[in-house]
């Protein structure tokens, strides 16, 4: 049953992806405040993400690929998110995106499964042109369960800061 539900969920998202209206390119910088070894500020690395966004009647579904520098080196992940608008004005919009990611820590011989969960409020500048820009700051939890066999730190809690460019595939009002 779980597999069927998972299939339906991923299938729906993927179909929506195919007809996505926006392509978004995001650059993120991660500021860590906690890991499973200690608490305190540390720089967590950067990420580049490209995703499709499909507006729904309420909010939008988004899915894409991200490549990130992280405590254990590099990782690539497929991120799936749901975006909802909180405040919409003529020239700007405040929205929030809940994102789940699954992927791999990039190692020869033994790539490791990683997953993440996060939420990010974003402020989007609505330029009424093909391109919009947004910024956001949120939080994200990332885990690499198998890395505990090599190092002490395999869970991270970070505040990602994002700069994004939204390219509308189809001009909307």
């Amino acid at each position, binding site marked *: 049953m779980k597999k069927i539900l998972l299939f339906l969920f991923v299938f729906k998202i993927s*179909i929506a992806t195919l007809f996505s209206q926006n392509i978004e390119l995001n650059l993120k910088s991660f500021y860590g405040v906690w890991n499973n070894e200690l608490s305190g500020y540390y720089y967590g690395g950067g990420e580049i993400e490209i995703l499709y966004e499909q507006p729904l009647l309420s909010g939008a579904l988004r899915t894409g690929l991200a490549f990130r520098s992280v*405590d254990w080196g590099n990782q690539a992940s497929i991120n799936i998110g749901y975006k909802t608008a909180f405040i919409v004005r003529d020239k700007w919009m405040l929205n929030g995106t809940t994102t789940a990611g699954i992927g791999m820590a990039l190692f020869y011989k033994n790539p490791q499964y990683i997953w993440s969960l996060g939420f990010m409020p974003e402020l989007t500048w609505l330029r009424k042109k093909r391109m919009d820009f947004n910024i956001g700051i949120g939080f994200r939890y990332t885990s690499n369960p198998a890395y505990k066999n*090599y*190092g002490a730190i395999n869970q991270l809690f970070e505040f990602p800061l994002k700069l994004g460019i939204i390219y509308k595939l189809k001009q909307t009002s």
Partner: protein
Amino acid sequence: MIYAIGFIEINYFHITAFARLLKPIITKHPKLIIKMSATLKTLISLFILGLFSCSYLPETKSEHPNLIIKETAEYIILSTISTDNSQSGIMFYPGGLVDPHAYIKPLEKFALEDNRTVLILKVASNLAILNSKKASTTTNKIANVDRWILGGHSLGGSTACIDIFNNQDAFEGLFLLASYSTKELADIQIPIISITASHDNVLDLGSLNENKVNLPEALMIDSPELLPNESTIGKTIYYNIEGGNHGQFGNYGAQKGDGDATITTDMQHLLVFDMLRKFLTINDL
């Protein structure tokens, strides 16, 4: 495994569903497809970037009962209850795309037998060159160690040279493992040693020889016993390990393109340790 099978199944269904959908979309929305192909190119670029950014993991984990390993997001520190902080600490830049934990085993003897603090730096994307100031900015974060020697393997060694070039007072010695300096350090007044291995097919020997001019006058030796009994400031000690290779300076198994070593990894680590220990002793570090 179940997740993997599920993932493959899902993708199989997707591919067939997408194939059915693609034909009318291409017919009706050719511009959309052109735009998506640009995105696809970006995704492929990211994928290629991913392929070239895989790191090597440690082969085995150090489990010595006396070794204390403390890890932060910035570095890994090795010590014991007998650590003598009047001796110089050893700071180390890992090789390119090698997990820093792969240097615990090669360097643990400095903590266990020489009672030194050893600090292995963690660097962005496991590429030391992206954090070429990290060693010099880390020295003052470790309160109880006053003197540091900097070293590095491969790309990490070259990065160590850049850091020392920019911060000449931060370190009291430099050691390079299968590496060379691209920065002009010929007049620097600290002891330097460069250790290579005879079966190393990763290190570019042409570049190594070309860049020897960047380090002080060369002194080749074949064993620790041939080291001079006085300070080596103003000279670069060159020591080539017979039978060793590039990957065995760390503990991450066979490296792509490397030669086949005729000595064990443990033996290569021991030869490096013996040479460096003597080098540090004669230079009063």
